[in-house]
């Protein structure tokens, strides 16, 4: 008995009971479709989170002051702690390994005023390297220079939202003087627009100035609220973090990591932290979908059992004309596999369709990974074999004489 003939026999048997075959497939179709859709939704949201985070900067490492001397021993992070000094910034810039760019950060919020227009925002005191770290680009004019930093020069770079709200008559902002509260700053450059990020934050609502100017002329402080760095590559991030930690621990004279008065977060860490949640969701969703696949498989087993009983006489006849036990086994197994594989293929189409419908109707981010299609297809074929096995085995074990007499 060759496999081709067995396939033919199984196909003929299925086509004789099309409606039943289709109903049996339904379980598999729903199972496969939901696995694909759930994984696509999970992966879509994960990718969108990753994208949001990577939009924030390139291999960014964020250093903030930190205190665990909060109430009840709660670990809290505060921007008015004075533990990060300019010296820390200089040392990281000069000594840290695997770090390609460093910028301090001090900020203050207030009112920006130009002629009779005003707009509330905040001013960020940074170094010129901040642009690379945050992946910002200058559209017109130029970035302030290291000279401006050293001379506490009151110059600034502004984002599109600031331009739109202050320069309502369409003037060229370059060379104009705007005021932050009462302090005048000369606009030397305009940033390229980045639009809103995926969390809905306006990335163009931004003003950058030399950190020295913000420290001395606005806030009158000698500490930093944060330091931002870029690691040379994503893989080098942990090494860069380690190098920075060593420098800061030495500067601050702290040897026990539990007592560190600073906190270092990397973009990578943030990204994996956020995506773990979405990974967990994906796993849960896929489990639910997987269960429906198993239910579909049980449906196949159920129908195959009925089918074997119904066709006892047919099995007896086949045996009497020379079908061996394994031929009968294969016939029913192939039938079960055909049901699950055909159902699986339909399920893939339904799943892909449902995925795009979800994306289109609810505008959820989706992403179909080819392995999820292969996986669900593989699982449903195995389901077919697994759940088809017992009924097929039952058929193969029938005694031909009794089977052919079966009423």
């Amino acid at each position, binding site marked *: *008995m060759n496999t081709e003939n067995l396939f033919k026999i199984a196909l003929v048997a299925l086509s004789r009971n099309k409606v039943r075959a289709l109903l049996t497939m339904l379980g598999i179709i729903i199972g496969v479709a939901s696995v694909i859709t759930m994984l696509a939704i999970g992966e879509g949201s994960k990718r969108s989170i990753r994208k949001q985070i990577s939009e924030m900067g390139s291999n960014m490492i964020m250093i903030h002051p930190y205190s665990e001397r909060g109430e009840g021993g709660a670990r809290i992070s505060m921007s008015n702690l004075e533990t990060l000094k300019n010296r820390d910034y200089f040392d990281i810039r000069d000594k840290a390994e695997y770090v390609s760019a460093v910028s301090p950060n001090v900020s203050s919020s207030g009112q920006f005023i130009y002629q009779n227009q005003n707009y509330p925002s905040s001013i960020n005191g940074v170094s010129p390297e901040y642009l690379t770290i945050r992946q910002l680009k200058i559209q017109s004019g130029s970035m302030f220079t290291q000279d401006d930093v050293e001379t506490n020069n009151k110059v600034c770079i502004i984002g599109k939202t600031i331009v739109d709200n202050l320069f309502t008559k369409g003037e060229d902002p370059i060379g104009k003087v705007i005021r932050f509260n009462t302090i005048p700053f000369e606009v030397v450059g305009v940033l390229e627009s980045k639009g809103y990020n995926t969390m809905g934050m306006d990335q163009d609502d931004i003003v950058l100035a030399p950190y020295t100017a913000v420290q001395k002329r606005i806030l009158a402080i000698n500490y930093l609220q944060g330091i931002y760095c870029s690691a040379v590559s994503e893989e080098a991030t942990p090494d860069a973090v380690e190098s920075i930690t060593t420098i800061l621990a030495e500067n601050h004279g702290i040897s026990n990591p539990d007592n560190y008065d600073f906190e270092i977060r990397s973009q990578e860490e943030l990204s994996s932290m956020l995506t773990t949640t979405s990974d967990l969701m994906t796993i849960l969703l896929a489990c639910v979908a997987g269960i429906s696949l198993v239910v579909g498989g049980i449906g196949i087993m159920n129908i195959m059992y009925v089918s074997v009983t119904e066709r006892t006489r047919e099995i007896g006849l086949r045996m009497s*004309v020379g079908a061996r036990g394994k031929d009968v086994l294969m016939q029913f197994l192939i039938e079960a596999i055909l049901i699950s594989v055909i159902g699986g293929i339909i399920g893939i189409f339904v799943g892909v369709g449902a995925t795009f419908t979800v994306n289109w109707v609810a505008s959820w981010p989706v992403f179909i990974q080819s392995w999820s299609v292969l996986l669900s297809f593989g699982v449903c074929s195995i389901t077919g074999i697994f759940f088809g096995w017992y009924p097929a085995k039952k058929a193969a074990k029938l005694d031909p004489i009794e089977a052919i007499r079966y009423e």
Partner: protein
Amino acid sequence: MNPKVEEMNNNPVIIDISDIRRDFIVGAETVHALRGVTFSIKEGEFVTIMGKSGSGKSTLLNILGCLDTPTGGSYLLDGISVQKMNKDQRARIRNTKIGFVFQNYNLLANTTAVENVELPLMYNSGISSSLRRQKAVDALERVELGDRLSHKSNQMSGGQMQRVAIARALVNDPAVILADEATGNLDTRTSFSILKLLQQLNQEGRTIIFVTHNEDIARYSTRNIVLKDGRIIEDTYNQHILSAAEAYEKLPKEEV
């Protein structure tokens, strides 16, 4: 002696059984369905096996057809010892050496005549699909159903269905055709048409074993074996074989 019987004496032995026993264990009791049956059948014989209900005819036929294995005794089919064969080997023997005809036809439902006849060949991987179709068509033509190839089983009369079943039994060119009450479900006229067909096949050299409880039929076979309680009580060669074709002609022609 009948010239036909004499002529057959030189033919090779197709079936040779000796002291065949078959016990069935039913609960605490043992049913002795066959209590030592011995005979040999030569190629070209048309043997009727008769006996009352429960005398062991079907049990014997199932053993001859390698569907069942005897509890004791030996069985040579076409020179091959089959009583020690395993299930798969017996399936192979059924596939190539045996043609079965059942009382209730046992055709596949919703399946065309030609597909029904192809069935045994489906389990023979040595036969291509075109050869399979050719052999099935030839067999159906042999039973005068050449014009009903694509009729489904439910579109045919009992006689036609039994012809399809006979064609199916012929298609693998078996060493012996085994029929169990093959005319049991048919009216007299149709029974005779089937008998006529079997006689023709026998005259072409086919070996046929026909189980029946209808005593009339023995007059159309070459040899008659009678069973009683699992033993042979009579084994005779027919000196005056009647022609089923003539008997068929003489029957009143009621409309089909």
